């Protein structure tokens, strides 16, 4: 093992000092080193969105992101949206809408919705459909995912004013 890089990151709020291989992807770091299982590899080429991660608030594919380049980054996964045991409002909306079947892809959808609503409280449904075009669900849970999104957009302006 020659090419180890020291990186300091925060993962779901916890500071982590890691020595990662140059070729190590973010998904490997999260799953193998840190036991974060909501980030899942499916396609390996950045198409399907099951390994979606928020890095400094932006969506990345964990399979295409090298951990060595993430020094100083804030990394958030779906587990990190839970605060004091309470689901985030995006997560709660998914639970309420029954937006899950096999559920393998769902955390990626949660992060994609979360990211959009973090920078834009009132996107249109059409904008949200495009936001979610990079996440694939083979069970076809899209109708309930859109139900969850519709419920969130409906409540977004209330949240904004409080």
């Amino acid at each position: 093992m020659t090419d180890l890089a020291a990186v300091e990151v925060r993962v779901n709020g916890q500071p982590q000092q890691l020595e990662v291989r140059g070729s190590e992807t973010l998904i490997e770091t999260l799953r193998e080193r840190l036991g974060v299982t909501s980030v899942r590899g499916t396609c390996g080429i950045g198409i399907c969105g099951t390994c979606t991660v928020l890095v400094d608030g932006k969506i990345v594919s964990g399979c295409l992101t090298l951990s060595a380049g993430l020094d100083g980054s804030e990394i958030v996964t779906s587990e990190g949206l839970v605060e004091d045991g309470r689901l985030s409002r995006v997560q709660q909306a998914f639970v309420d809408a029954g937006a899950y079947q096999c559920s393998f892809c769902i955390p990626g959808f949660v992060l994609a919705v979360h990211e959009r609503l973090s920078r834009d409280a009132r996107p249109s449904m059409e904008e949200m459909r495009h936001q979610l075009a990079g996440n694939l669900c083979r069970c076809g849970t899209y109708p309930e995912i859109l139900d969850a999104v519709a419920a969130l957009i409906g409540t977004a302006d209330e949240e904004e004013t409080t």
Partner: protein
Amino acid sequence: MIGADLRPTDAVERVVGTLPFVLDKKVEGMVHAAVVRSTFPHARIVDIDTEAALQVEGVLTVLTGADLAAESSIDPYFGGARKDQPILAIGKVRYVGDPVALVVAEDKGQAEEAASLVYCEYDELPFVESIEDAMVEGAPAVHDDYPDNACGWGKLRWGDVEQGFDEADLIAEGEYMTPAASHVPMEPFVTIAEWKGNKVEVWTAAQAPHSVRRTLASIFGLEQEDVRVQVLNLGGGYGAKGQTKIEPMAAVAARAVGRPVRLELTREGVFFTIGKHAARIRIKTGVKRDGSLVARLVDVAWNAGAYAVVSPRAVIQGMARAPGPYRIPNVWVDSRAYYTNTVPTGPFRGAMTTQVAWAYESQMDEIANQLGMDPLEVRRRNLLREGDLHPTGQPMHDVHFVELIEDAAAGIEWGDTSDVDLPPNKVRGKGLGVIMKSTVTPSRSEARIELRDDGSVVAYTSSVEMGQGAATTLLQILSHHLGIGTDSIRFVHPDTDVTPFDLTTSSSRTTFSMGAALEEASVELKHELTDLASSLLEASPADLVHEDGGISVVGQPGTRLEYLEILRRSKIEQLDAEGVFQSEGGLDPETGQGVHTIHWHQGAAGVEVEVDLDTGKVEILRCHGTSWAGRVVNPLRARQQNEGNVVWGTGLALFEELVFDEGQMVNPNLSEYLIPSILDMPRQITTREMESSEPDAELHGIGEMVIPALPPAVGNAVYAATGVRIVDLPITAERVLRGVMARRDQS
């Protein structure tokens, strides 16, 4: 509890991402395997050079088929219908992607690096890629034991088709093609195998844990009790994870290195493990002028790929489903599978039905067109009714095809032809499809339940939760039959050491079959409780009644004993009961006569499309999917099955296709093999899970009944819009545009 909107107990874990999958499982001391795959479709293995791979740091061993063949204590071949598949290729490779070697290393990266350094020298052989290649006289044989590449033949003989055609006023005849496809479960195949002495334990993402156990026992010459198979939630299955897939590789690797071995396939590896049968369907139908069908001849050729898996059995299912849900007095079906040098195939959601339904439902509209009849009316006139005989000779019961097709039509406002303002290059049309699907028969499901003296119940079944909601549905069914709240009942994941036999979680059989086993176990448990209560209350069993987890003497509510009190006062810590569902059936191999299915699964779809005449692009504006449920156990999960069917069927209708060229799979990745995204789904999806008015109506599986109806419904809608009849799936823009241009040239 049946009919309630019960949410799964693990809904939060599903959304947050902490739901356990085998993918997440770690076993102390485990090492990792990677697969070396053939790069040729058909070739003799001359030499496999493992030297460079063995030099890689962390590599423990490299196994080849020759190593396995030399090992007298194992049988290196397996297969659900024929033992024709080697764990690793022995002597020759039969498709691009055929496993030829297995590298085991301390970590996954080392195993993958070393796998790329295994050099195989091949002597190429002529190969067969398509059904047409495989069936010609003198074609290269994929397996020496099957020189004509035959991989199963189903024959259905009913009435006299020649006489039927003589009586017909009109003959419709056509050839329809459906391509290979890939299941694409988002969770890859993943297995951990560990030997403990002479016993092997396996964690695996599989739909049929008991089948895996039987296969591993056969390979290693073990008693079934010496093989333990455990399953967690599956990240999708859809048929891909049925039977036995990568478990033998993990198990031989673990035995070779004496440590637990984890094998997780790459996405390409998933594409190279199992696919869907491509099929060519020739169908000829005789029709009377009033629209009644009098004869149908169907010749189905299935591309089985390089190994049989279950094709010899699956062709029988495809055979029985090939005539469609219609009354036809004279039927002749030949349903034949052929080996080819392509990826092995198996059941694929809507199994062995999507292919034949594409043919018979497309042709139904052609018949309507030739007769000048409404496509809805010509179907209504011919659909099977209660008491009619299916061409297998089996009387139809609990059939609702007419209600389903009428519902599908109503869902898209079939009769409404009011004009919409459209640009001159856009046209719209509506189409229908209706299908029947059998469920695997004979089959067996066993369940065991334990009532504990704290009043809780633990249920043991080998049914697999893979997103379809089996865990919740079975919980509701057991709660209903026991009269005990769902909060007090817990189901365990399949573990062949503790959960009893179940054939498989597939074929849309679980709600009905395991539901029946749980019902029987509940009756048995209540019977045992009645006997105990009879002693405690000094009352005749006939005078005792069960209600909501307690027993009392009829008319004397004051005598009520809770179940847990009955156990405690009887000094029993735990009461066990078992239930078994067993269906019987089978068909005559020469005529296809007999009992094919315990009941028929039924579905229909109605779609409206908009076609762009400049580009050929088809957009599904709306789709109504409907299936016969009998009774709905869980409304949300039932609806999601049909919605998921619509999304899945959209992909098959418009773009999903595994492409082969010179024996190579061209698109084994999600960049080039497209599955439907949120932007691909129909703009409007509605569904109906149709129920009986009878309170005790039979439960019907609804996992895959809209899918087969959808591609022909889209094809029929495209025809209605453009006059172009597409006979090859998928209905790509290119095919539609070519059709539109050809029609322009004609006029």
